[in-house]
């Protein structure tokens, strides 16, 4: 149900020009490559075809001093990939801050007894002091691992998430991990995700993926009876329960989800992954690496899917089913039919309230493209989108989603985003916590699209209903009408109202 519309490319090109004119020359030259207006593709409109080209430079260094919204490799590894693995203890190895600021902030839901057999919403840190910098922290790390074993004996493994200083002072966390793993007969994974590595969260994802390959796969005999319909869900972090709202659908169509990476995951789910028949990847950006590895090494095929909004869910379910043949396909049609009344009712309720509203997005990972159709299912129009840490292949994929004239911004700066929003005045902005309050001050409704603004799930049919409700409550809240003190109302505005 792709909406047919075009965006005001000329306005967007002008906005780009305006923001660039404010930078010093050197920075303007560099930023120019990250900003563009999507142009019509050759075969626009047909399913699976490219709708537009989003030609920007990406995955290169941020410019100093411009207020990039990006994070770091540690955030990509501990915060995204490893942190949600619930039965392992993840040590934020280095000073206290990184672990403190990321503590419980990604809403990776899980079931378990925290502090006893699961450790998700806890902050384990080596709390580096000056002496650890001067003399090295390997001895301390050894002691930390011993203390974890004593106080949290039901942990099923430990990861060592390196913060900036570790790589700079030359600690050998690999040696410590290897020795201690042998001593305690536990999986211990050193992850070299120091924050200065790479240009964003992205390299942290890659390093975290590699650590799975090098420190988890083939380290134990995995006893597991493989079945014909076994799949892994890869790159679903169960934010607000996303992975659960997805799993329920995959099980309903007859598949067996033998591992979910990494929301609500246990180490066992990661270890057995190579035995599955198919890897279903949601967040391509953060976990494509390990899917490619599993394909090469173990022959596990992988496919991307999108569980945001009914159009994409239907398409994805059918594509997934096709992989398994008629029996699953038949069940899939039944599942789609079963949820159709819910979808219809949700759209009937909310589309009239949201039709034609414009949206600007700025997120990470998969969402700057994946959520677009979910908004369009509600009759909304995407006027701008961009990624914090995308690569070229993400922008290629974005062309399948965005329309001609859409404003595209890579690694946007605080300044640019503010000016773009001011210039476009969309009806809704979807971005992160750092962007939320500036946007709301301008009187523009906002939803956090990392944490689902403490709501969710947004995946699956159950999630779509919540998504629709949340978008509606953001846009149609009466508070936006109270911004102007009545005695300050401009005469222009007064006349406009009277003329209606």
């Amino acid at each position, binding site marked *: 149900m792709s909406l047919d519309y075009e965006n005001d490319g000329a306005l967007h090109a002008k906005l780009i020009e305006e923001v660039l004119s404010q930078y010093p020359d050197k920075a303007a030259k560099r930023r120019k490559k990250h900003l563009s207006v999507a142009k019509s593709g050759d075969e626009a409109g047909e399913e699976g075809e490219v709708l537009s080209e989003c030609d920007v430079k990406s995955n290169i260094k941020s410019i100093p*001093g411009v207020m990039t919204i990006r994070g770091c490799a540690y955030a990509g590894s501990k915060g995204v990939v490893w942190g949600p693995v619930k039965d392992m203890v993840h040590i934020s190895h280095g000073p206290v801050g990184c672990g*403190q600021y990321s503590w419980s902030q990604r809403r990776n839901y899980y079931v378990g007894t925290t502090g006893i057999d699961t450790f998700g919403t806890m902050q384990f840190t080596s709390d580096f002091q000056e002496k650890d910098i001067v003399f090295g922290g390997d001895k301390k790390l050894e002691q930390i691992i011993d203390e974890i074993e004593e106080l949290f004996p039901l942990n099923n493994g430990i990861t060592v998430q390196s913060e900036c200083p570790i790589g700079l002072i030359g600690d050998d966390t690999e040696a410590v991990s290897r020795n201690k793993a042998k001593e305690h007969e536990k999986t211990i994974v050193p992850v070299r995700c120091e924050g200065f590595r790479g240009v964003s969260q992205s390299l942290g994802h890659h390093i975290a993926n590699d650590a799975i390959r090098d420190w988890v796969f083939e380290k134990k005999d995995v006893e597991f009876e493989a079945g014909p319909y076994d799949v892994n869900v890869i790159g679903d972090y169960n934010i607000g329960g996303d992975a659960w709202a997805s799993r329920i659908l995959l099980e309903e169509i007859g598949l067996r989800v033998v591992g979910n990476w990494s929301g609500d995951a246990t180490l066992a789910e990661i270890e057995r992954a190579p035995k599955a028949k198919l890897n279903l990847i949601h967040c391509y950006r953060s976990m494509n690496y390990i899917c490619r590895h599993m394909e090469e090494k173990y022959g596990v095929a992988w496919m991307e899917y999108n569980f945001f909004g009914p159009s994409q869910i239907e398409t994805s379910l059918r594509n997934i089913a096709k992989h398994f043949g008629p029996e699953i396909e038949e069940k899939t049609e039944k599942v789609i039919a079963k949820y159709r009344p819910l979808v219809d009712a949700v759209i009937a309720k909310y589309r009239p309230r949201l039709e034609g509203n414009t949206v600007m997005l700025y997120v990470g990972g998969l969402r700057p493209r994946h959520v677009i159709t979910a908004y369009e299912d509600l009759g909304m129009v995407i006027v701008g989108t961009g990624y914090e840490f995308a690569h070229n292949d993400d922008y290629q994929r974005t062309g399948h989603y965005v329309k001609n004239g859409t404003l595209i911004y890579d690694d946007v700066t605080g300044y640019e985003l503010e000016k773009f929003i001011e210039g476009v005045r969309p009806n809704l902005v979807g971005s992160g916590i750092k962007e939320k309050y500036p946007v709301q001050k301008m009187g523009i409704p906002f939803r956090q699209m990392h944490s689902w603004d403490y709501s969710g799930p947004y995946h699956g049919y159950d999630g779509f209903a919540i998504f629709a409700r949340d978008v509606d409550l953001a846009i149609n809240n009466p508070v936006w009408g109270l911004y102007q003190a009545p005695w300050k109302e401009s005469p222009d505005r007064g006349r406009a109202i009277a003329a209606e």
Partner: protein
Amino acid sequence: MPQSAEKILDHAPLFREPEYRQMLAEKKLNFECPHADQIVADQGEFTKTWEYREKNLAREALVVNPAKACQPLGAVFAAAGFERTMSFVHGSQGCVAYYRSHLSRHFKEPASAVSSSMTEDAAVFGGLKNMVDGLANTYQLYDPKMIAVSTTCMAEVIGDDLHSFIQNAKDENSVPRDFDVPFAHTPAFVGSHVDGYDGMVKGILEHFWKGQERTEAKGTINIIPGFDGFCVGNNRELKRLLDLMGVSYTFIQDASDQFDTPSDGEYRMYDGGTNIEDVKKALNAEATLSLQYYNTRKTLEYCEQVGQATASFHYPLGVQATDEFLMELSAISGKEIPETIRLERGRLVDAMADSQSWLHGKKYAIYGDPDFVHAMARFVMETGGEPTHCLATNGTSAWEAEMEELLASSPFGKDAQVWAGKDLWAMRSLLFTEPVDLLIGNSYGKYLERDTGTPLIRLMFPIFDRHHHHRFALMGYQGGLRVLTTILDKIFDKLDRETSQTGVTDYSYDLTR
């Protein structure tokens, strides 16, 4: 199917529906390879014992759920309290994303700061180029009046020298030569956010005061509030008191407007804060008062060096701490404490007297920054409560000694214990083995509330899961009323919950309490 368009269920009710419960139970059984329920239950029980507590408190290396953050967070907060000041944090960029998020989640407000975005090559060659380019970009894009530079641990480990880097950047015309770029080295592996606050404020004062002639202006006072998640409410309340007294004062560092901008259609990147001109003039003040000693140790030393009298407090909250603060103000300024303030004091005492029966003998566990814990313990004792556990992860041995002295000053402190340097996983053991009635801390304490059943009162930064508390003052007599009411509400709500079962416990569900 649990979901419907009429009644949309989000995560809280949705996953309690039978379809999801069954799905999750099967996931656990078939795919998670969990420990046997009995083993988990046994370990859970074991963590409640004295034996576990001893092991837990004997930890030397591992830190679990600490109640402190790192220095640059304090520096960024400090810089936000000066007129049109942009924080520029030299080092890795992910850190800055974290500070901004952390502050925004607490204040529900924008929090601006930039990074010099150092990466692997800068780790090898140093971050000079990042500083030179970064200052130029920040200056041009964000139109600041001052750029306050602090550091992440990456820049500290490789030893970048801010003083010479900033000089270099000025030489290369990144910013005009006379543009103010104060700085502070804020290594994350030393101290905590309260020290970062100290460093940045000192850096700013030094920047403006160094080499300047001081002409003492009698009776004028500088006030440094310290790192305070309640600065919005507190600073405004303190100014009201100071104005009532007619004191001539300057707040040095005041983020109360920056973290409380109105919604009227305009996004203000900068709002309020101490004027640069006022910072310069503040050199002449007769005295500088710190509201939080452990946030300002170095700054106060510096103020003494330039010839100012200094005095410090521990988060003036409650009756006697406010008394002392006002009397000190009066002594330095020569202004009398007006009758209106005496009446305010009387009203707080009146409220405490009205409610004393509900507070007397209540046991508390209190954690947070050192000055706050001192203040809360003192106020709790004023109400007849017992501060059984007083914990500050960033508390020093000096703080511990000062706490011991405070506790020894009242019979209500005789069974109290002070836990300097301990974390909230240690607190968990303390609450299981020596339970209390109430826990005072921040949002992280909710995990302790869940595990131990101790009701949590949120009065300390950061508060993520409740809204707007920080907009109300805790300091002064008015603040005392707010704290008192918050504690009482928690007590009454709990009692009502415990007595609300119809026909079983509701004889005690009293209408009047």
